[in-house]
Each structure stands twice: as structure tokens, then as C-alpha cells.
């Protein structure tokens, strides 16, 4: 192929697939240097504004990208890619909105903070579209490396650095396991390809003879992914990292990387390794079941709301893994996407309120919510909506997303797991309702009122409104959205 042809093809066919993530990477680089030189040190809001604009633009570019495969079949844009990319961008935007109070309190310049968020969202956007083990592994690492730094970002707080180190060490460990699993699969398939579709075909042939290599490899890849989405028994890092990280980053970690990792989970296991499903289905079922049980039971005895949300997010991941196990990849993707979307709304609202209370020196402990119903009725009502929806209590939107997921699981024959999911959901309702009860039925000494930041108010209002809208339109709306975005 001549030079001109190659260049033309790269520019017209491959590059448009990546406009969104590429914009993020370029913008974040330019922000660090030389952009950093031109913006005054006192001007902290400017970078938040720029980063939010860049994210919005990247989201728009990603949604309008052509549906195609490119870069030697390493990256693919389809409904799954677009849907989960949108979730990651939303997660990034919400994080930037919630970060304002905490960053204003910092003395240092904060351009790195936004650049890291942009880089990690870039990694996530690449991850959900990756159709090759190479591109998948490196985008996963781009995402993870940025988040390690973000967790340890408050380097003058021991807690933050400790959480960063713990998360980093376990993350590096898990990425080693993941890569070794990949190398085993590569070896088992004869060492000729890392493309998911091709690997699937080759591995299915090898696996039919009961190959230990394939089995070990796919199990290790499963473990690597389970670490990233914090599923039991590979969840140990998550409560500590959640508690120690700056709270907006905790919100970020519970939304965007989870969405991206689940998207990749779907891509790799739901569609990629379908041919060797018998090798990973049972272990995945155990992981999902253990996550539901342990996540919910451990959340019961948490005193800190941050830790409670961490453990409950483990349980939510357990539910979403039901969708990965679905034999119908399309329906599974839709169910997980809807679940993740509603989860994002509820989680962002709950974290916005948590950050607001933290700004007043309260908010981490559940006891700090005492009397919130009397002191700030509107805020307490919003919090109640978020918590009840997280618990999946009808008729709120969290119920619909759970229902769609569980219905699919039953249809696919995972009856025992679904029953387990229902039972543990009841446990979950207890600890979410407990917080609501504390807000409304426990007295608390009067504390001063502080105004809530405008961006945080926006996040709470929008999430609450969307949840209520979703509640009124229910199934029909969700079904329609799932088909429009992922169809």
C-alpha cells in the first residue's frame, strides 16, 4: 500500500471512530502543558469549565461516530460502545461538578486533577470499544493508572495516600493476573492473534478437548475483571479505597470505571468468549452470588455512609453480572446499561448530598444524618428518593431496572441466582431504609445552615427529577431507551 493510500485510509476510516477519546487525550495534554502556563494560578474555576466543555464535546463526538470497526480490528463502535461511553462521560461530568467545594479548599493548583479525570475517561471510552485483548488491556490500564493517582490526590492527608497505595498495590496485582491470563489464552490459541472474535473461534476448538491452558487463562482474565469491578472475593480494596479517596473521586470510582469495566466485561465474556462459555459460566455465577450476599451483609453493619455505599456497590455489581451471564448478549447489554444508568443517577445524587454535609464537617457517619428531615426537608426528600431507588423499592426507577435485569436472568434459566438476588435485595432495603429512618425519626442538635454549591444543587435536582420522571413513565421509557441507544 502506498503512503498516500495508507494515510488516507487511516484519516478517513479509522480516526473518526476515535474522535471522542482522542479529543480528551489531546485536550488533557494541552491543559497540562502549555495551557497551565497561560491560566493564572488563582483561577481554579477556569479549568473545571474547560474540562466539562471538553467532556461534553467528546461525548457528542462519540455519540455521532460512525458504526464501524477499525485500527486492524482493535476498536469497534457500535451500540454497546456508544451507550457505555455516554455513561462514562456522564460520570466524568458529575465528578467535575461535585469536585468544586473540595478543590476550592486546596491550596495547590488543580489542573492535574481535571487532566487525570479526562485521561481516565479517555481510557474508559477506549475500553468499552476495544475488540482486541491488546487494546482492551492498555485502555483498562490507562483508566486504572489515572484513578490510582486521583485516589491519592490529597497527598497531605494520610488517609488519601494510604487508600491510594492499597488500591495501587492490589490493582497492580490484579493487572498482573489479567495479563498472565491473556498470555495463556494467546498461547492456547497458537500465538497468532489477540483479536477477540478470532480468539473465540480458535479457543472453542482447543477447549473442546478440555484444555487446561484455556481454562486457567479464562479464569485469570475473569479474576482480573472481577478486581476492576470489585466483585467478591476480589473486592478487598474497594471499601478502603472508597473511604480514603477524596469524596468526589469516590463517587467517580463508583460510577464511571464500573460502567466501563462492565461494558468491557460484556464485550469480552458476553460476546467475545461465547465459544468457551462453559469454562467461565460457573465461576462467574459464584462470583455474582457471593457479591450479592457479602456486599449486602457487610453493608448492614457500616457506620460510615461512604463505606455503606462502597459495600452496596459491590452488591449492585453482583446483580449486574447476571446480565453478563445472559446467553442473549444484546438483551444482557441493554439490561446492564439501564441498570448502570439509573445507578449513576441515584449514586450521584446521594454523593452530592454526602459531599455537601461533609463540607459542613458532618456527613460521613450515618448518625450525621439525624434530623435532616426537619432541618432541610427538601434535601432529605431528595436523599430519600435516591436511597429508596437504590433499594429498588417500587414504583421508583431503581425497581424497574432491577426488574428488567432479574426478568432476563429468569428467562435465561438462572433461577437460583435470581432468587438469591431477590432475597439479598430485601436485606439491602433494610440498610437503605435505616438511613431514611435516621433522617426522619432521630432528633439532632440544631446546626448552622450552609448554602449548597450551585453545581451540587444542579446534580441533585437533575438526578432526582430524572428518577421521578423515570418512575412515572416506567418500563415503556426504559425499554425504548435501551433499544434506541444499544439497538
Amino acid at each position: 500500500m502506498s503512503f498516500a493510500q495508507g494515510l488516507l485510509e487511516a484519516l478517513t476510516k479509522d480516526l473518526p471512530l476515535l474522535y471522542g477519546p482522542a479529543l480528551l487525550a489531546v485536550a488533557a495534554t494541552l491543559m497540562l502543558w502549555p495551557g497551565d502556563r497561560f491560566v493564572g494560578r488563582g483561577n481554579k474555576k477556569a479549568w473545571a469549565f474547560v474540562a466539562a466543555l471538553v467532556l461534553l464535546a467528546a461525548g457528542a463526538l462519540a455519540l455521532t461516530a460512525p458504526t464501524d470497526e477499525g485500527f486492524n480490528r482493535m476498536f469497534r463502535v457500535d451500540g454497546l460502545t456508544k451507550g457505555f461511553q455516554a455513561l462514562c462521560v456522564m460520570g466524568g461530568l458529575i465528578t467535575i461538578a461535585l469536585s468544586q467545594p473540595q478543590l476550592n479548599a486546596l491550596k495547590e493548583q488543580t489542573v492535574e486533577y481535571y487532566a487525570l479525570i479526562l485521561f481516565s475517561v479517555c481510557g474508559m471510552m477506549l475500553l468499552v470499544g476495544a475488540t482486541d485483548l491488546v487494546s482492551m488491556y492498555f485502555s483498562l490500564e490507562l483508566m486504572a493508572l489515572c484513578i490510582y493517582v486521583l485516589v491519592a490526590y490529597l497527598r497531605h492527608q494520610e488517609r488519601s495516600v494510604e487508600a491510594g497505595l492499597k488500591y495501587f498495590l492490589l490493582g497492580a496485582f490484579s493487572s498482573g493476573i489479567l495479563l498472565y491470563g491473556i498470555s495463556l489464552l494467546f498461547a492456547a490459541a497458537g500465538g497468532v492473534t489477540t483479536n477477540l472474535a478470532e480468539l473465540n473461534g480458535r479457543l472453542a476448538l482447543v477447549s473442546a478437548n478440555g484444555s487446561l491452558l484455556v481454562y486457567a487463562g479464562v479464569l485469570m482474565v475473569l479474576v482480573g475483571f472481577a478486581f476492576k469491578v470489585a466483585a467478591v472475593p476480589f473486592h478487598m480494596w474497594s471499601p478502603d479505597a472508597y473511604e480514603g479517596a477524596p469524596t468526589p473521586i469516590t463517587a467517580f470510582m463508583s460510577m464511571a470505571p464500573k460502567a466501563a469495566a462492565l461494558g468491557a466485561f460484556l464485550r469480552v465474556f458476553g460476546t467475545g468468549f461465547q465459544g468457551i462459555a462453559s469454562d467461565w459460566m460457573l465461576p462467574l455465577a459464584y462470583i455474582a452470588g457471593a457479591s450479592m450476599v457479602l456486599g449486602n451483609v457487610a453493608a448492614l453493619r457500616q457506620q460510615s455512609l461512604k463505606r455503606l455505599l462502597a459495600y452496596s456497590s459491590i452488591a449492585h455489581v453482583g446483580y449486574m453480572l447476571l446480565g453478563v451471564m445472559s446467553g442473549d448478549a444484546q438483551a444482557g447489554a441493554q439490561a446492564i446499561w439501564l441498570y448502570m444508568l439509573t445507578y449513576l443517577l441515584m449514586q450521584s445524587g446521594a454523593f452530592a448530598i454526602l459531599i455537601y454535609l461533609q463540607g459542613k464537617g458532618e456527613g460521613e457517619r450515618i448518625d450525621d444524618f439525624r434530623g435532616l428531615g426537619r432541618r432541610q426537608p427538601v434535601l432529605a426528600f431528595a436523599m430519600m428518593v435516591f436511597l429508596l431507588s437504590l433499594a429498588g423499592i417500587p414504583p421508583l426507577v431503581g425497581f424497574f431496572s432491577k426488574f428488567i435485569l432479574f426478568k432476563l436472568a429468569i428467562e435465561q434459566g438462572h433461577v437460583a441466582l435470581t432468587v438469591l438476588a431477590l432475597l439479598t435485595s430485601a436485606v439491602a432495603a433494610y440498610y437503605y431504609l435505616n438511613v431514611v429512618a435516621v433522617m426522619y425519626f432521630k432528633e439532632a442538635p440544631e446546626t448552622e445552615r450552609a448554602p449548597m454549591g450551585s453545581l451540587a444543587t444542579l446534580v441533585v435536582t437533575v438526578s432526582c427529577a430524572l428518577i421521578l420522571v423515570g418512575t412515572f413513565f416506567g418500563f415503556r421509557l426504559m425499554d425504548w431507551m435501551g433499544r434506541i441507544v444499544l439497538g
Partner: protein
Amino acid sequence: MRGYAPILLLFLVALALPVIIWNLSRLLRPYAPSAAKASTYECGITPATEARDQFSVRYYLVAVMFLVFDVETVFLFPWAVQMKELALFGLIEIGIFLFLLLFGYGYIWSKGALTWE
């Protein structure tokens, strides 16, 4: 596998040699320890501090940055091997890669990470 037999032999000899020499000298040498003998040898001068010394934290910073930029050259290697076949397209791509590295360099420079106070 037969071709590897000499290497195995070499390996065994290499293992045995230090063990033999160390034990032999232990048997032959006189035993007379003294304070001067046990102290650290520092060109004949009395040692001022302990041999274990802390590096400045700055050193780690520079070392980490060196590490990153050093290992990036690993990506030049495959290009250098295939330079002729990759032709102009490869040259431009590697140019873009090096150009991107420049931004990282500009960033650490502007942050003052390269100045040793």
C-alpha cells in the same frame, strides 16, 4: 537438549567454586579479630557516618522521570528494526510519538521537577 550439557556443567562448577574457596580459606586463615579490622574501610580514613545513608527524596523524583522517558525508547526499537519497510508512514508515526513525548517533557520542566534546589 544434548547441546546444553556443557552449560549445565559450567553451572555446576560455578556453584561449587565459591563454596570450595570459602571453606578452604576458612580452614587455612588464622583467627585474630580486632576493632580496627572490623570497622568499615574508607581509604584509610576513620569512617565519618554509617554506610547506609538516605538519598534525598528529589533523587527518587528524577529517577522516576528518567525511568519513564528511558523506557519509552522501547517503542523506537520495533520501528528502527523495520524502518525501511515502514517507509514514510512509519517515520511520520514515530515523529508524532516523539512529539507527544515532548509535551510530557514540557510539563515536568514547567513544573520545576528538573531543578535541583
